[in-house]
């Protein structure tokens, strides 16, 4: 599973000095140096990308390296398909090495739907470069004209002939490094033979047989298990600690370094028992509870992490509002919600002298390396972070806190140490999607044309802040707030919150004017791709022919983010006891040329159900810096009984670059459901989660939290 360790991480070593051939065997290596992306299709947010490299061995095996990680989103297979396509080999011949900081190109992290936008083009370039280099070698060797040669099924052959020379043979006794630029000619999507067609994950068997090694399954010789002390209340500081009874326990390794207290022992049970004997005193900071959260967020502006704020103004929104035929002014709210990845945070750390290896479930292995090296004051080159298969992340596994804790414990114990969070720790000491307030003011003409748009969000974030509706007079901005519980990234970031507010407000305009919600959107949207998914979804759902029945409602919403376009239509029934049944969700999605259709469909289906949880019932409850529902028995996630009929339409645009699909399919679900509930009951719900105690609230004030 784990390849041998180079002298120094390859991203910190000049290309010519990397031991590609010593570690991987003789053959051909093609590399694309790091670059800044210029992909404007991505919706404005573009982290740097680290290039890629690929090794073709004399055994015919292809190893492609990317700093992205696999957390269940299917990137491994999709990226392998991209390589297989360009190199004209079968999917099974391609081994993708992911998320290993010693061997992979530097990468900012697996988030923001960047894998298809950044990593796929980079891998496509090196695979195409390898194919061209093989053709060159074959031409030189066969003394046949290069134009008459083609790469096919892992061989180079003369066009029209059935027998060719296998790649492995062409690179025998070779140790050649070729550098390519992003301009290397690649196969246009229209000519794809493998990508864009059904493909079975070649590694699926190890999943159903239990053989796949996830982070928490990593076992090392002599390994111990750790447990760490956490502040019982968010923001509390350790003031006194008495470790005397822990120190007496045999076989327990103890670390106390500033605020960090942790133990390692022969089993997790023993480690937690030892930790239970720590006597700690804490100095707490007062934190608001749920009733005060709105006031708190509005009065505690803050900057945090590396999140953006944005401010945009066009025309004269105030004057346009004053002149509008109809206005809607409302505030929309979202609760804190938890990612709840099924695998909790997990890390295994092992030292060999001064050099450290950490296996950790993280979406940002290179950031985790930096974090660990800085905290331990050791050279970056001495830290290897490996992100194995991880039991999902959803934006909740950024960083490397568990990696650092495991490393501290392993250093003290002189043996490898595993640290796995319990479910309760995952809820309490991870972070939540932020609670947010969004103030919206809309002005429109009588025919539904929008004339004024004022949109101010507090603490959601900047993703999908800008409206896809080209309103002439706009003021759009956001601010961030301090938080009484840990908050951070989440799948699709702020897009579900911003889109919930926006698409609810548009629906309110339609209702005020008595205009069909579809028509209001048609009157205002100009993006042809967005209109196409809207019409596809409407046709599939039978929007035009829908009939009015008591308690039944239809809701519609669109979204544009990270280069993807989505339209969602929800069909719901509200019973006389106000219980809600979601009968159907129709999602139409377009993200350019589709690389792995079945995986895309699966992503859309999964996003729909995950979004349904956040829309209807998920909420982290808190008081005084403590999370009150840190278990699956207390925090409800979607289950089989919540599964509606989900119908997915995928629009394949082979003429457009592939954008990501892990996030955008979720962003129109909450507003579609809120709009459907309004259609069914006349009650406009403006807070997520929409349901209260599992029922549709009778008034807005009793909804949600």
């Amino acid at each position, binding site marked *: 599973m784990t390849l041998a360790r180079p002298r120094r991480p390859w991203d910190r070593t000049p290309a010519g000095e990397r031991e590609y051939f010593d570690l991987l065997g003789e053959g051909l290596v093609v590399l694309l140096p790091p670059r800044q992306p210029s992909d404007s299709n991505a919706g404005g947010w573009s982290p740097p990308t680290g290039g890629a490299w690929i090794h073709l061995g004399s055994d015919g095996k292809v190893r492609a390296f990317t700093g992205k990680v696999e957390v*269940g989103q299917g990137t491994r297979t999709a990226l392998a398909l991209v390589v297989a396509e360009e190199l004209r080999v079968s999917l099974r011949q391609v081994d993708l090495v992911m998320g290993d900081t010693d061997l992979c190109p530097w990468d900012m992290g697996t988030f923001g739907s960047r894998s298809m936008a950044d990593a796929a083009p980079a891998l496509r370039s090196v695979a195409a470069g390898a194919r061209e280099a093989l053709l060159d070698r074959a031409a030189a060797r066969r003394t046949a004209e290069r134009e008459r040669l083609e790469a096919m099924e892992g061989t180079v052959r003369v066009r029209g002939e059935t027998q060719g020379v296998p790649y492995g043979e062409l690179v025998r006794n070779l140790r050649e490094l070729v550098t390519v630029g992003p301009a290397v000619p690649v196969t246009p999507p229209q000519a794809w033979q493998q990508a864009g067609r059904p493909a079975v994950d070649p590694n699926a068997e190890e999943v159903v047989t239990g053989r796949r090694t996830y982070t928490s399954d990593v076992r090392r010789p002599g390994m111990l298990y750790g447990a760490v002390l956490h502040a019982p209340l968010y923001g509390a500081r350790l003031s006194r600690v008495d470790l005397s009874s822990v120190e007496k326990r045999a076989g327990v390794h103890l670390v106390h370094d500033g605020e960090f207290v942790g133990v390692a022992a022969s089993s997790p*049970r023993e480690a937690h028992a030892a930790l239970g004997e720590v006597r700690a005193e804490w100095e707490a900071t007062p934190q608001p509870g749920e009733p005060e959260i709105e006031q708190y967020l509005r009065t505690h502006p803050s900057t945090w992490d590396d999140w953006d704020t944005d401010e945009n103004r066009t025309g004269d929104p105030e004057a346009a509002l004053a002149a509008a035929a109809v206005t809607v002014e409302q505030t929309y709210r979202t609760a804190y919600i938890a990612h709840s990845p099924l*695998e909790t945070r997990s890390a295994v750390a092992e030292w060999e002298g001064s050099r450290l290896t950490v296996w950790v479930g993280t979406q940002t292995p290179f950031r985790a390396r930096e974090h660990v090296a800085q905290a331990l004051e050791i050279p970056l080159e001495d830290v290897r972070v490996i992100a194995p298969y991880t039991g999902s992340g959803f934006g909740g596994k950024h960083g490397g806190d568990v990696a650092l804790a495991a490393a501290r414990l392993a250093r003290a114990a002189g043996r490898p140490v595993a640290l796995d969070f319990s479910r309760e720790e995952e809820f309490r000491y991870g972070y939540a999607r932020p609670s947010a307030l969004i103030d919206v003011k809309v002005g429109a003409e009588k025919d539904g044309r929008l004339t004024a748009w004022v949109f101010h969000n507090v603490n959601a974030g900047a993703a999908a802040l800008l409206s896809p509706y080209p309103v002439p007079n706009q003021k759009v901005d956001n601010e961030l707030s301090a938080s009484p519980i840990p908050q951070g990234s989440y799948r699709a970031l702020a897009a579900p919150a911003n889109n919930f507010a926006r698409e609810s407000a548009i629906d309110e305009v339609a209702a005020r004017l008595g205009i069909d919600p579809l028509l209001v959107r048609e009157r205002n949207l100009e993006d042809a791709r967005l209109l196409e998914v809207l019409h596809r979804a409407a046709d599939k759902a039978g929007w035009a022919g829908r009939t009015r029945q008591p308690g039944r409602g239809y809701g519609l919403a669109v979204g544009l983010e990270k280069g993807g376009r989505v339209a969602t239509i929800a069909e719901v029934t509200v019973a006389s006891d106000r219980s809600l049944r979601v009968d159907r969700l129709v999602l139409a999605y377009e993200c350019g040329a589709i690389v792995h259709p079945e995986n895309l469909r699966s992503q859309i*289906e*999964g996003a729909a159900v995950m979004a349904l949880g956040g829309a209807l019932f998920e909420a982290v409850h808190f008081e005084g810096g403590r999370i009150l529902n840190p278990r699956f028995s207390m925090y409800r996630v979607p289950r089989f009984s919540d599964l509606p009929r989900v119908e997915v339409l995928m629009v394949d645009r082979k003429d457009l670059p592939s954008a990501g699909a892990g996030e955008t399919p979720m962003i129109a679900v909450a507003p579609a459901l809120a709009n459907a509930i309004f259609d069914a009951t006349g009650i406009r719900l403006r807070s997520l989660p929409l349901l209260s105690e599992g029922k549709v609230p009778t008034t807005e004030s009793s909804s949600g939290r």
Partner: protein
Amino acid sequence: MNGQPTRVTRSPERSLLELLRFELNLVGTKYGCGEGECGACTVLIDGNPMRSCQVHTSELDGVHVVTVEGLATGGSLNPVQRAFVELGAFQCGFCTPGMVVRATALLRRNPHPSESEVREELEGNVCRCCGYARILSAVLRASEFGARTPPGDG
């Protein structure tokens, strides 16, 4: 354990899940919640699906335990496993061992369950990624293959 006589130290404190993961190195069975709410740790005990985090090792004497590692016999996947692969019924796959074990037990008891019977049976198994529809389809597909009792699960 998966058809092999296995001698273990029993304890009223230690759970079967701990025994599997930290002593017997059978790590296919997953920890998800520790309170019997997510189903990731499901195994068969004398053919019945049980949450191994809720089973104490002191209760294990002369019982047949089958974990996900014991479902495929003679190198061939059982019908549920085959259907999960064919339909791509997982994303991260962390819930899959529990899903597959429980669905295998269902099909042995009820070879042709209705859609609502499958939903009801798997209600206690959480999947955070794939949205459940594919899992449902896979179990129904497996019932068409004809689910057979894997040898060795008592």
